[in-house]
């Protein structure tokens, strides 16, 4: 399968040898620097975290509403605090490196997803707009192989961007926060049970969930790119749906329409099942994976069928 590797190599070159890719990295780094700078400005000393936690716990127990300056999520259970105190696990403060990584991933993963939507949404259509599709498809290679290489290139780029994102977040926050790592355990409540995992395992779960999200959104943009032959349309529509999706889901579920749970937007975040924070209570991890698989197969079938059958006329 040397040829398959060579085809992937070609597609990767066409991504990273363009200015666009480097501009994306600069934007990503810029946003992380900005976030880290804001956090570093108000960084506090957490050596007496036990007292802080104790205070917060009693406040919570007394009137059952969290104080305004709570460092933790307002819905945290006092039992969780007790566990942290008993096992000497400090809270994941945002002004420590791990805390910052945990906090900033919400923002940076969205940015990486938008980048992947842009790359996936243009990887086929740009060949048409550049006119290079003709010289690309007169090679002694079946079209589906060329398309597969393109999709794999999108996935590989997604993994690379996520890794770069993690590395940049680690290094930049390390520089700004003096490599104060913070807690190396992550504790959370799921139902009535306390879960205690290593921070690395927690990040691995976030990473895996983000990757699934990336692949589905990338596949969606990829399908539009194959269908429309028009860069701007494919990217525009994918990014629009990426942001409009949650709104649509919100509207549908507020109307108590059950169809919302079958939309892929609602199912792309698999991490919600780790902490049990999923939006609709009747969905499960298995359900979401099944929905995503169906969509993924549909996107791929449409892409490969269109690309293999289409006459190159322009």
């Amino acid at each position, binding site marked *: 399968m040397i040829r398959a590797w*060579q085809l992937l190599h070609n597609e990767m070159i066409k991504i990273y040898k363009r200015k666009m890719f480097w501009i994306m990295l600069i934007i990503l780094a810029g946003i992380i620097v900005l976030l880290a700078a804001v956090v570093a400005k108000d960084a506090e000393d957490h050596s007496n975290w036990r007292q802080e936690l104790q205070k917060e716990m009693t406040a919570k127990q007394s009137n059952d509403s969290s104080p305004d300056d709570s460092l933790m999520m307002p819905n945290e259970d006092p039992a969780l605090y007790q566990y942290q105190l008993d096992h000497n696990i400090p809270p994941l403060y945002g002004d420590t490196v791990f805390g910052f990584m945990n906090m900033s991933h919400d923002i940076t993963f969205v940015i990486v997803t938008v980048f992947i939507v842009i790359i996936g949404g243009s990887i086929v259509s740009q060949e048409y707009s550049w006119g290079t599709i003709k*010289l690309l498809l007169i090679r*002694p290679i079946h079209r589906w192989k060329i398309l597969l290489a393109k999709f794999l290139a999108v996935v590989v780029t997604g993994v690379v961007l996520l890794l770069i994102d993690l590395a940049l977040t680690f290094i930049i926050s390390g520089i700004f926060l003096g490599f104060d790592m913070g807690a190396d355990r992550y504790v959370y409540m799921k139902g009535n049970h306390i879960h205690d995992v290593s921070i690395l395992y927690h990040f691995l779960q976030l990473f895996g969930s983000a990757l699934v999200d990336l692949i589905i959104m990338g596949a969606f943009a990829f399908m539009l790119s194959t269908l429309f032959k028009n860069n701007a349309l494919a990217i525009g529509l994918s990014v629009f749906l990426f942001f409009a999706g949650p709104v649509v889901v919100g509207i549908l579920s507020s109307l108590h329409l059950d169809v919302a749970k079958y939309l892929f937007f609602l199912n792309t975040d698999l991490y919600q099942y780790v902490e049990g924070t999923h939006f609709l209570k009747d969905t499960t991890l298995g359900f979401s994976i099944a929905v995503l698989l169906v969509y993924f197969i549909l996107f791929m079938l449409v892409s490969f069928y269109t690309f293999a059958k289409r006459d190159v*006329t322009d």
Partner: protein
Amino acid sequence: MSAVVEVRQLTKRIKGKEIVKDLTFDIHSGEVLGFLGPNGAGKTTTMRMMLGLMSMSEGDCLINGYSVKTRKEEALQYVGGIVENPEMYKFLSGYDNLMHYKRMHPNVSEDRLHQVTALVGLTDAIKRKVKTYSLGMRQRLGIAQALLHNPKVLILDEPTNGLDPAGIRELRDYLRKLAKEEGLAIFISSHLLSEVELICDRVLILQKGQIIDSQSVREPEAEILEIAFEVDKLEEAAALLRSNFPDIAVKAHDEQLVVEAEREAIPAVNRRLVENGIGVYGIQTVRKSLEERFLEATGGRAE
């Protein structure tokens, strides 16, 4: 000469309309075959089907014995192509562009890449980004990518589009050399007759999706010519020839007797006229130029 390309009953229908109808022809190694016709005749569609860019409604195209339809991965190994302007990746260097295509063919060495680069005279510029290239340089890079994998056939759709006269001349000389020295079969389309006339050995004329004429550009001896005899007694001479040479078409035209016959027939016709007391003042073969034939074939709508 063996046929490297065999096109058989090739047909393309789009929405019930036949764009290309039942084309059958061969291309031999060492031959430059021109594909001539007005814009919209179906030349590009035919070539795109041969290159696997468009599907065939009916018929097939065999290259080196492999069907483009069913054995694409074998058939297209032997074909190099340029479809209109060769669009390259402008953000890559010429070298990276060639490497890109090299990876898509089996068994193309790095040496071969440098060889074709030198062949088209781009050695000094090959590391530069393609966006800095002139149109002529891009065209030459296009030829380099078409030749990279040592093809047996070149299929070139309007390759001179956008080239200046010097560029056209350069390309023309180069293509003739490739056909002669390397034995390549070259199939080249154009809507400009003058261009094809200078490059090609043979020409297919396409109109409304059908081949309406297939002509050799360098006229062979045995072909039927129009021969004009300048004679005094026109009607008598015509009647005489009609009775004596039943195989030969004779017509009286503009005070001249126009005979359609092979070159070898001229002395015999002349002798018969003279022996029967008809004064012959002049004999002239009217060679039809390709242009006349082209205009004739396409009903005068050449441009």
